[in-house]
């Protein structure tokens, strides 16, 4: 076994080049990462600078924006008559989101439990794609589904108690939209629970229900909660479904049978509307957008904190 030429020569490549390449690559990759930060900066800059056109108007006060109970930016073309109180939009958003969560969280969680604890490989192999298809259904489609199927069904069931456009049908459609997300993220979290815990539970004589509910779900709680928060963010930010199905009248109420213009719904209406660019009414959409941004940012922060706080204890 003679030593091969390559090792006799021992002419190793200088490392200078790879070091240089490494530097350039790190620089480029860092630039990519920086871009994501730039996007956030861009969003904040845009929202702040454009909503300045709103808040600097004499007709608008921050206090009024936060506390007034009417929002008529789209209804009033005269500035004097326009009311800019975010609460009705917020109430609409919360109603729709709440209903969506009522649908998505339990259904998503139970489906996730089913997938991670019970389903055989074969069932998983078609149930998961099915859920993925639901997740992939364009939101426009779900919006029309809400108008054409959900809302009439609700009216039929309730004997007409529901308005044509109402928070509930939009909420249900948004819930359907969020369900796969809750499901797949919770399932991930539950699958990350080590087998040893399940074995521990079964070893003590747990039934599969007890194992799932008393051991796996609590152990995966941080992941499940962050799935919930993500779904919540998604529901809050969902646009096309609510633009189509929730109605366009901002109402400050808890009544789920009534119309509920949401923040995103308002933004899209304002964009589509023929309200003129540059008016205070037009700029109000940026004020709404900034509120929306802050809410989702808050959600992210809460999610991060929960993850940090509770995930560590369990590793």
């Amino acid at each position, binding site marked *: 076994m003679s030593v091969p030429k390559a090792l006799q020569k021992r002419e190793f490549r200088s490392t200078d080049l790879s070091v240089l390449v490494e530097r350039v690559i790190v620089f480029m990759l860092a630039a990519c990462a920086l871009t994501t930060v730039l996007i956030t900066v861009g969003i904040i800059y845009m929202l702040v600078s454009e909503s300045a056109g709103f808040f600097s108007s004499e007709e608008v006060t921050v206090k009024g924006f936060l506390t007034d109970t009417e929002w008529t930016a*789209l*209804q*009033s073309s005269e500035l004097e*008559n326009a009311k800019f109180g975010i609460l009705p939009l917020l109430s609409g958003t919360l109603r729709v989101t709440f209903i969506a969560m009522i649908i998505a969280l339990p259904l998503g969680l139970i489906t996730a439990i089913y997938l991670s604890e019970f389903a055989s490989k074969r069932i998983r192999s078609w149930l998961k794609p099915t859920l993925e298809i639901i997740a992939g259904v364009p939101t426009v489609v779900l919006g029309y589904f809400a108008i054409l199927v959900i809302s009439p069904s609700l009216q039929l069931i309730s004997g007409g108690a529901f308005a*044509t456009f109402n928070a509930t049908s939009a909420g249900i459609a948004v819930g359907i939209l969020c369900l796969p997300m809750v499901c797949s993220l919770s399932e991930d979290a539950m699958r990350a629970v080590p087998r040893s815990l399940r074995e521990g539970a079964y070893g003590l004589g747990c039934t599969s229900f007890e194992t799932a509910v008393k051991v796996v779900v609590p152990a995966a709680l941080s992941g499940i909660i962050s799935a919930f928060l993500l779904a919540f963010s998604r529901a809050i930010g969902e646009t096309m479904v609510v633009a189509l199905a929730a109605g*366009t009248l901002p109402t400050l109420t808890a009544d789920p049978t009534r119309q509920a213009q949401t923040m995103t719904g308002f933004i899209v*209406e304002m964009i589509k*509307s*023929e*309200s003129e660019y540059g008016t205070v009414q037009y700029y109000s959409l940026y004020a709404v957008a900034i509120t929306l941004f802050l809410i989702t940012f808050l959600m992210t922060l809460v999610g991060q904190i929960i993850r940090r706080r509770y995930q560590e204890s369990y590793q």
Partner: protein
Amino acid sequence: GCGPKTTTATTDSTTAEATSSDPAGSDSAGSGTAEVSNMSGTIKINGSSTVAPISDAVREKFIKQYPNVTVNVDGAGTGNGFKDFQKKATDISDASRPIKPGELDACRENGVQFIEIPVAYDGLTIVVHPDNDWVKTMTIEQLKKIFVAGSEAKKWSDVDAAWPAEEINIFAPGTGSGTYDYFREVVADGEGESLRNDMNLNEDDNILVQGVAGNKYSIGFFGVAYYEESKDKLKAVEIVNPEDGTAYLPTTENIASNKYAPFSRPLFIYVSTASLPRAEVATFVDFYLENVSELCEKVGYVRLPEEIIAKGRENLDNEAIGTHFVDAEGNKRSGPLAANFKAENLTK
């Protein structure tokens, strides 16, 4: 009047000759049909979403003959259309109402000159739920009670004591739309009057149809085209003509003859004169006028009387710049189209 075919033929030969940029018109009868045009370029149109289907229909027919010409038709609304127009971002602005004095001023400031051409009639239809058995006709006064802010008819019985004491649900197009503007102009014409702001507004007329159809105590208004398609779900209200005191339905005849007053409204295109030297724009506008009467009916509108079309063409040929709906003092002119659309009313 004439059938569409003859109309096309006559206008073709008369106007083509006169159009400054089309020298070949007189020979058109003998040739041209065989060969596809090599004309190219891009034409940008924005404005009324009501007019957009008409412009789009014209575009569609136009590019069959002129396949290399790109025509962008956007329907961001009359107001936004004029905004773009003032910024010189479009060649043609669609409008479902005449230009307003403020918009005219802005055009002047930016050095934008235009030719105003009416292209079709739209009937603004007031609709109620088909099960609504108490409303058959309405007067402007009654509409005022329902729609104007401050008059506060919350319930039907507030309008007429004989009507049910149920809350009125109102569905209307968005505030930026020409339709909303036109309705407000007619109904809330007093000093400081405006439409109430608890209506369900939506830019999507289909949503309005759904809204009215879904509630027995609702009322709404939108273009006649949408009503025509949803006759089974909605009931149109007869409107009492303030002139003759008779109630009329928004039928084609009533709209064209302006009996369906005051809600027959004309639709316009505004053509930038700066764009007219461009062969593709000139050809397109010419084509527009040739075909609009036929095409507008296909998309649900009412054709204009031949004289008005001819007048529009004349304005185009003569580069008669300006609007007929703002007077020299900068005040708005209102009234029927035929009354205003005269050479002496033209304000640059």
